[in-house]
């Protein structure tokens, strides 16, 4: 880091990371499980999360949290229950297992339950990036200080968050399954804004290595967008061509898999893929899949009950193919679980968390050049996909830079617009897919992400506008 020499003389503020290692964790889990007897599972998740939030070119929230959670799930026949504690102490784990067994006994049988899975083998995962796992708040402060200075030179202010996460997950069950994974994620979200309103720009990236984040370029992009978005004009609501940059696409794909790409959403008639498997549901160049092992995203080799993650192609070259299953929906659909079991205590529906859109051959510049009358969208705000799930009707606001594009050129910034659009329909109207993809970590799960490119869509409905 540029600031390394400078920070050496400053007070040491290194992250403390004294959590027990893999062998100790697995040994503790195994011992607790063996002592308890019966059919049971222990899911261990630990997290060291360090987040530096900033606003108006200064740090205002700087946080460092350390936690472990162990969820004990017991099966009494086909009856299930789970109890979680944030401790690895033997007594706490045994008490949790005992309680889970008592609760399971009072429950009703899950008729699809076929028992805990036995030993599994898992695909490869990247090594933990030690520099990210042990990153200090001084490093983040040192990385941000020059960005604040640069933003100030342009009369703008940087807001956002820079975080480093070290997560570890283990599953051990009474059938002999033993799974371990650990990974790191560094995440940068930068918004450049004019003081008191005016322009606003955004840039974000994530990587398992903090060192791979190009923060100066991200800041430059956010600041440029902020400057270019000053003095926006009104645009009449209507249906236009649209270019969605990756952050906007990621917002949509943080909702869509839960609404449309799970076994339960198909059973319930909420998925637009229902009764359409094998049929065309999107443009030829649209391939959407979930892959916990693709190192272009955030890797998670197994699900919350230790089943290996399988690659599930929801839409392959425009054709509906398959959905993600947990044990329940898999049994009802007479297929096998795909490695998408939800965490204990969550609603029993598959959890597709590692979402990808296959890259295309285009780029944002080409998309702009091929747009006659359209809107370039940096990102969305407060998107909601519950309006009418069977047609995947979504709404949301543009944010941090929306621009009018005409005759192949960006003409001027526009005031933020609300879209109300069937995403099922929009997927048919995708004309171009960008080659470059960006990872957006999930705001809902430490292990989730969407790795998506920019998309150009022929028709996209903007239903109203706002005042800025």
């Amino acid at each position, binding site marked *: 880091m540029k600031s390394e020499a400078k*920070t050496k003389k*400053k007070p040491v*503020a*290194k*992250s403390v990371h*004294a959590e027990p290692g893999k062998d100790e964790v697995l040994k503790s889990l195994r011992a607790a499980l063996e002592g308890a007897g019966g059919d049971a599972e222990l899911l261990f998740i630990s997290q060291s*999360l360090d987040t*530096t939030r900033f*606003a*108006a070119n*200064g*740090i*205002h*929230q*700087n*946080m*460092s949290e*350390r*936690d*472990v*959670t162990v*969820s004990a799930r017991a099966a009494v026949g086909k009856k299930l229950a*789970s*109890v979680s*504690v*944030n*401790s690895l102490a033997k007594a706490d784990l045994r008490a949790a297992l005992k*309680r889970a067994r008592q609760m399971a006994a*009072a*429950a*009703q049988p*899950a008729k699809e339950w076929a028992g805990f899975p036995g030993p599994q083998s898992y695909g490869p995962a990247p090594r933990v990036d030690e520099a990210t796992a042990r990153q200090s*708040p*001084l490093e983040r*402060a040192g990385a941000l200080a020059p960005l604040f200075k640069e933003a100030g030179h342009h009369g703008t202010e940087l807001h956002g*968050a820079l975080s480093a996460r070290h997560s570890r997950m283990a599953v051990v069950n009474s059938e002999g399954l033993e799974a371990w994974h650990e990974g790191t994620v560094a995440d940068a*979200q930068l*918004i450049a804004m004019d003081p008191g309103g005016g322009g606003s720009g955004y840039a974000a990236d994530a990587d398992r290595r903090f060192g791979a984040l190009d923060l100066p370029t991200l800041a430059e992009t956010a600041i440029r967008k902020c400057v270019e978005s000053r003095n926006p004009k009104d645009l009449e609501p209507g249906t236009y061509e649209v270019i969605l940059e990756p952050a906007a696409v990621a917002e949509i794909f943080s909702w869509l898999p839960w609404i449309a790409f799970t076994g339960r959403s198909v059973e*319930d*008639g909420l998925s637009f893929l229902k009764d359409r498997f094998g049929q065309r549901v999107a443009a030829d160049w649209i391939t959407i899949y979930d892959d916990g092992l693709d190192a272009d995203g955030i890797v998670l080799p197994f699900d919350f009950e230790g089943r290996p993650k399988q690659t599930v192609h929801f839409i392959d070259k425009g054709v509906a193919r398959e959905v993600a299953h947990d044990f*329940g929906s898999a049994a009802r659909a007479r297929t096998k679980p795909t490695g998408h079991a939800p965490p204990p*205590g969550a*609603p029993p529906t598959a959890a597709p968390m590692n979402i990808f859109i296959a890259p295309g051959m285009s780029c944002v510049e080409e998309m702009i050049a091929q747009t006659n009358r359209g809107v370039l969208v940096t990102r969305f*705000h407060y*998107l*909601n996909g*519950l*309006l009418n799930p*069977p047609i995947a*009707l979504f*709404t*949301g606001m543009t944010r941090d830079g929306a621009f009018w594009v005409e005759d192949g050129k960006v003409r001027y910034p526009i005031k*933020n617009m*609300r879209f*109300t659009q069937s995403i099922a329909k929009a997927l048919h109207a995708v004309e171009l897919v960008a080659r470059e993809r960006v990872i957006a970590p999930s*705001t*809902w799960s430490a292990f989730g992400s969407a790795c998506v490119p920019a998309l150009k869509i022929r028709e996209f409905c903007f*239903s109203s506008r*706002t*005042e800025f």
Partner: protein
Amino acid sequence: MKATLQNLLSSLRRRRVEYADARYVELEDETLAARNGTVEVNSRGTSRGVGVRVLWNGSWGFAATHDLENAGEAADRAFAVAQATASASAPRARLAEVAPARALWKTPFQTDPFKVPLDRKVALLSSLSADLKKGKRIRSGEASYSAYRTKKLFASTEGALIEQEIMECGAGIVAVAAGNGVVQSRSFPNSHRGDFVTGGWEHIEGMGLAANVERVREEAAALLDAPDLPDGKYDLILWGPQLALQIHESCGHPIELDRVLGTEQSLAGGSFLQPDKLGKFRYGSENVTISLDGTIPGGLGSYGFDDEGVPTARGPVIDCGVFVGYLTSRETAAKMKLKPNGAMRADSWSRLPLIRMMNISLEPGRWDTAELLDDSDGAILVDVNKSWSIDDRRLNFQFGCEAAWEIRGGKKTKMYRNPMYSGMTPQFWNSCDAVCAKPHWRVWGVPNCGKGVPGQTARVGHGAAPARFRGIQMGASR
């Protein structure tokens, strides 16, 4: 834990911090969810830990640990983080003065929901969900319940020492009907997990869940054949739970002073209610008086003290249509020369307190609901939220609801499906010409308010009685 917290605060005093506080929190939760007669979610959890907040050289640091035997390490880490903050020339934080409280506060309740036998809960939820499923075109019947017990011990270098125990619980039912490629749902008493309070199991028993099963499943099925609401401008009557969410999104969030001052831009966004509007901006019509009140018995946003030791408060937000009050922290209050009103809450020991709503309520008006319906021929009444969205300054909003009815002759008549309405916040509240009276007013609990990075979920309350808004743009989500 008192000694542990005092020891770590003593160590921070020795390092000459300007201020520090420490919270020990024990969280306990229970969730059961049943579908079509079978309980599918049956879980409990506990989480305990210590969070330490340090103000050093005008810069904040926060650290949290689950390792109670080494809680002092969190204090060391928080101090180091504050030093790192200072290294990046952070703005100097200053806190408004507050008398250090030494207090004990507990949610009043009759029956501890955690002590109600599990088999009784299983029987209730499985029975409700099975009965919901009995309708001909009902694809699924669902019933759920959750309870939360939060024990907090707060201590500060100023001498505050506060113990609290907060009990919250709630439940809800939903019937999902399907046919001819259409899926519709009806919920009671609210969607998105139901209605929640601070209180005990007596709330669950008093909700009337079983009494509403038949109506809910019949309305869900009826929606399959109902027409879409035609696009147009209508007089709109918002019934309780949807009005609660309207208050939440278009008033509760924009009065959070951290958003106003720009420190929540990275996720939640800002606010149109900038400081130059305080005391003079006409937010709504003279029928609109909105208050903040963390003392309402049973309100989901009711508690004794916030997570920086400030007692919860009562006060005006919108007074006869004029914007007059913010939700504040000690730091933001100092910046604006206001009084802190006890709004800083964290959802866990591991997270930093943020400005969160308590109970933000539309005060009752003078109308009887029968009188309002009589006076609203041709108006559209909407009930229970389906989707929600609002821009990052809280102006342009759009809500989708489960069902709508045309009002004719003082009664709900023709039913419409997929209703949605939209507007701009000040114009919307200025169109409010009727609010129903106290007998029709109640507090609704919203258990899933998201804010912050990393994300936090707050449980907040909103008092509301049915209200009417003139000339609102409506249509169908199709």
